[in-house]
C-alpha cells in the first residue's frame, strides 16, 4: 500500500506577534503545528534569531566576539554591527549597567542609550533589563516610554514587577511585553493571566519560559516547552498561545564549559569552540521544543542556528 501523508494541523494557532517597524519587522508565532512539523502545516513564520549585546561592551567576551566588533568604541556602533551580523533577525540590548549591585547607572541614562540604539538601527530591538526586579520595574517602564513608536520587545515582566512593566510596555506605549517565568508551565500561564487581567492584550505578549544550558537540567525545559505548545495547540488554551522567546546566551555563558579557560582545562580543547557549541546545542534544542525565537551572542552561533532554521523550514 502506498504511503499516504495525512496532515494533522491543529485547529488552534499560536498568536502572531510583530516586533519592530518597517521592512525589517519580524513576526513571531502564527503556526498551527509543533515546531518544524511542516508535513502537518506550514509554519508561516520561521523562528527568529536575536543578537545579544551588553551596554557594558564586549571586553570580557571570547575572542571571536571581540574580533567581530573589532574597534567599535560605543554601544550604538556595536548595535549597528550586531544588526548586520549574518543570520541576525533582531538585536537585543541588555542594560546590564543599570544593576544596583554593579555600575548602577541611572534609569534616564540607560533609557537614553536605548533610544540612541533604536534610532541608529532599523532592525527590530528587544531590551533586556539588569535582572534586578525592582530596578527593572522602573527602568523598563522608562525604556518603554522613550521607545514609543518603535514596537520594541521589553524583556521581561515577571511576577514581581509585571504591573508596572505590563501597564507601560503593553498598554501605554505600545511595545511588546516579554513575560518571564521560571520553567514551569503553570507559572507561565499564571503570569499571562495576571497580565491579561491587568488589561494587556494576549497578542502583545511573548513568553520567556526560561531555559537551562544543555546538560544542566535541560530535560525539564524540553518538557515544559513541549507541554506548553501541546496545551496551546491541543487544548486551545489561549493563555498559553503566546509565542516563546528563549534567551540562550545569558544561560550558556555562565556554565563552566563556556567559561573555563584552556589553561585550567587543557583536555577540553578550545574555550571558544566550547562556548559556541553550548550556545548552538542549547538553541537547537529549544527551537526543536517550541521556541519561536532564541537570543545568542557569538557570530558563529548566530550563523549556524539561522542556517539550521532555514534548512528545517
Amino acid at each position, binding site marked *: 500500500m502506498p504511503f499516504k501523508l495525512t496532515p494533522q494541523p491543529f485547529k488552534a494557532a499560536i498568536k502572531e506577534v510583530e516586533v519592530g517597524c518597517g521592512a525589517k519587522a519580524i513576526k513571531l508565532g502564527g503556526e498551527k503545528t509543533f515546531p518544524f512539523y511542516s508535513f502537518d502545516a506550514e509554519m508561516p513564520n520561521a523562528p527568529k534569531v536575536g543578537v545579544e549585546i551588553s551596554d557594558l561592551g564586549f571586553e570580557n567576551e571570547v575572542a571571536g566576539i571581540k574580533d567581530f566588533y573589532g574597534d567599535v568604541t560605543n554601544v550604538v556602533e556595536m548595535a549597528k554591527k550586531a544588526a548586520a551580523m549574518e543570520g541576525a533577525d533582531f538585536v537585543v540590548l541588555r542594560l546590564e549597567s543599570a544593576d544596583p549591585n554593579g555600575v548602577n547607572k541611572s534609569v534616564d541614562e540607560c533609557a537614553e542609550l536605548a533610544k540612541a540604539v533604536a534610532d541608529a538601527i532599523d532592525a527590530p530591538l528587544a531590551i533586556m533589563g539588569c535582572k534586578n526586579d525592582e530596578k527593572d520595574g522602573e527602568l523598563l517602564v522608562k525604556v518603554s516610554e522613550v521607545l514609543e513608536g518603535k514596537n520594541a520587545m521589553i524583556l521581561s515582566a515577571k511576577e514581581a514587577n509585571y*504591573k508596572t512593566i505590563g501597564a507601560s510596555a503593553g498598554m501605554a506605549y505600545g511595545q511588546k511585553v516579554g513575560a518571564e517565568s521560571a520553567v*514551569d508551565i*503553570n*507559572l507561565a500561564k*499564571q503570569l499571562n*493571566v*495576571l497580565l491579561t*487581567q491587568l488589561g494587556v492584550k494576549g497578542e502583545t505578549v511573548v513568553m520567556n519560559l526560561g531555559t537551562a544550558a544543555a546538560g544542566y537540567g535541560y530535560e525539564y525545559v524540553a518538557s515544559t516547552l513541549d507541554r506548553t505548545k501541546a496545551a496551546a495547540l491541543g487544548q486551545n488554551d489561549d493563555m498559553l498561545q503566546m509565542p516563546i522567546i528563549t534567551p540562550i546566551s545569558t544561560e550558556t555563558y555562565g556554565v563552566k564549559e563556556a567559561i573555563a579557560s584552556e589553561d585550567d582545562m587543557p583536555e577540553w580543547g578550545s574555550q571558544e569552540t566550547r562556548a559556541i557549541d553550548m550556545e548552538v546545542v542549547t538553541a537547537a534544542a529549544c527551537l526543536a521544543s517550541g521556541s519561536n525565537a532564541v537570543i545568542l551572542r557569538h557570530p558563529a552561533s548566530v550563523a549556524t542556528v539561522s542556517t539550521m532554521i532555514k534548512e528545517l523550514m
Partner: protein
Amino acid sequence: MFQITFKFENGDDVIVHALQGENLLEVARKANVAIDAPCSGNASCGKCRVKLLSGELDSQQTRHITDEEYASGYRLACVSKIVGDVSVEVPDIASAYKSRMKVADLSSPEEIAIFEKTKSQIVDSGIQMVNDLSVVEVQMDEPTLDDTMPDNERLTRALQEAGGVEKVTLPYFVIKKLPDVLRDSHFHVKCVVKKNKHGFYVYDIKDAAEDVKVYGLAVDIGTTTVSAVLLNMESGEIIAKASAGNGQIRFGADVINRIIESCKPGGREKMQKAIIEETLNPLTLSMCQSAKIGSDQIYRMCVAANSTMNHLFAGVNADPLRCEPYIPAFFEMNGFKGADLGLEINPNARIIIAPNIGSYVGGDITAGTLASMIWDKPEFSVFIDLGTNGEIVFGNSDFMMSCACSAGPAFEGGDISCGMRATDGAIEACTIDAETMEPSYSVIGDEGEKPVGLCGSGIIDVISELFRCGIINAKGLFVREGKRVRHDEFGMGSYVLAFKEDAGSVKDVEITEVDIDNFVRAKGAIFSGINVMLESLGFDVSVLEHVYVAGGIGSGINMKNAISIGMLPDIPLEKYEYIGNSSLSGAYTILLSKEAEEKVHDLGRNMTYMELSTHPGYMDAFVAACFIPHTDASLFPSLAQR
C-alpha cells in the same frame, strides 16, 4: 546561675535560670516559652529571632540577620549562648500560640450534636453501640474464724457467681487496695470489669455505696492541636471536652522536624514527655476536674493520631517513617496500658490506637473515615481532613483509597500571622464591601467579643472576599490601595481587618501577602491531591455524590467561598457537609463500641494508600492549584457564570 527573662510582646514575662554556655533556644524550650524554630535549631530558617533588651548573649551573626538588625539587638536564639543575666523579647508567634495552649471548656450543643449524629449513623449501619466494660455489684460474706478464705479468692468466687464466668483476673492495682475496700464497705462492693470470652478482668473495686461509673477518654492527637472528650462508657454521654496545642510544637511545626528532634539524644523521651506529661495529662486532669470525677475512673482510652504522633506518643523510634522506604514500627498496636505510658488514667486502662495505614496516613484518618460513613454508601464520596497534613479518602462501600498531602498548619491558623484556632476571639466569617473595602465579620464567643485573630474558616472568607473585590490578584498580591491596605518597608502588602483600637489584642488583626501565600499553598495541596487521586483512578470530580470536610478549620466554613478560592472542587454546594473533628468523633465511637473497633481495623486493612509525592503529575497539579481559584479556570465553571 544566671537569670534569663523572656518578655512577650503583650507584656507578660517568664523568668528562669540557666548556666553559663547554655543554648538560649534550649533554655526557652525548658521554660515552655514557645519560640518558633521550624528547622529545630540548625540556624537555617532564621525564625527563632529574639531581641536583646538588656544583658549580653554570645551569639554570632547569621545570614538571617542584617547588620542594622544585629546592631539593634536581634539575635537567633539557636546560636546564642548564655554568658550572663539577660532579658530578651520574644516575638508573639502569636498570642495565637498561647491561645492554642489553653485548655478549652465544655462543648457546645452543636459539637455534641456532631457526636450524637455520628453515633446514630454508626448504629444505623448495623454496628451495635456495646462495649465490654460494666459495673458488677457483689455482696460477700464477711470472713470469720470459721471462714478464712483470702480476700482475693472471696472476690473471685463472688464475681464468678455474679457473672457466670469461669476466670477472674485481679491485677496488682486491685489487689493493692482490696483489703481496705472490702473492710470499709463491709464486703459489699462494686467492681469495674471487662467481660470477654475468658472471663472477667477487674479494673477497679469500690464501696457499693459509691456511685460507680465507667468513663472513657477519646483523644485526637494532631500535629498542631490535641482534642479530647471524656465520656460515660455506658450511656455514651460526653461529660467534658477540651483541646490544647500539642506541646511538641516548640520542637518544630511539622512531623519531619519532630522526628528529627526525637532522634537527638534523649529526644524520644523529650517528645513523649511533651505530648503526655505536658499536654495530655493536664488536659485529662482539667476535664476530670470540670466533670468532678477521678482520673483513675477512666478505664479505657482511644487515640486517633497520625502515624508520627502515634509513634512519638508511644515512645517508639519514628525515624524509619521519615526515611525511604518509609516503614512504620506498627500499623496496629493495642498492647498498651495507661501505666506503660505514664498517662493520668487508670493504670490498667487499655489504650486503643486507631490503626495507621501508611507512614503518612494514620489512625486519625481511619477513625475519621469510620465517622464519615463513606464505607457504608454505594455512591462515591470523598472525605477530606484539613489538618497539618491534609488527608483525602475516596471511595464507597466497595473500595477506598487514601492519600496525604502536606498542607501545613494554615487550616488551624498556624503559619498565619494573626491565625488562631476556632476559639473565642477568632474571626470565623467575613464579608468585604467592594466599594469601600470595609469588612464586616462575625467573631466566635459571646456577644461583643473583640477580634483577636483569624481561624481557618475566617481566612477562607477573607481571601475569597479580597479576591472578589479585586483587592488582591489571583496570586494573592495586593493590587488596590486604601486605608485598610498597607505595605511594609519591604513592600509586603497586608489588609487590616481590625485596627488595634477595635481588636481584643495588642496589635492589629490583619492578613498579609505571606499569610495568603501560605494559605494558597495549603489549599493548592488539598485541591491537587483530590484531583490527582481521582484522575489516577480514571474519574473526575463529577462522580462525587458527597464531600465530607473535617478538621479544626471551624464549623463556620463557607463552602461556597472555599470553592471560589479553589480549595474544593466546583460541584453543587448541597453535596458538601462539614463533619467537625471526625477523628475525635471516630475515636469516640471506637471507645463505645467493640464492633466499631473491629470495623476501624477492617477499614484500615482494606484501604489502599497512594503516595502522592512519587506521582509524576502531582507537582504540576499543585503549582497549577496555587492560584486563585486555579490556573485552569475551566475547572471552576460556576465562577465564570457569576
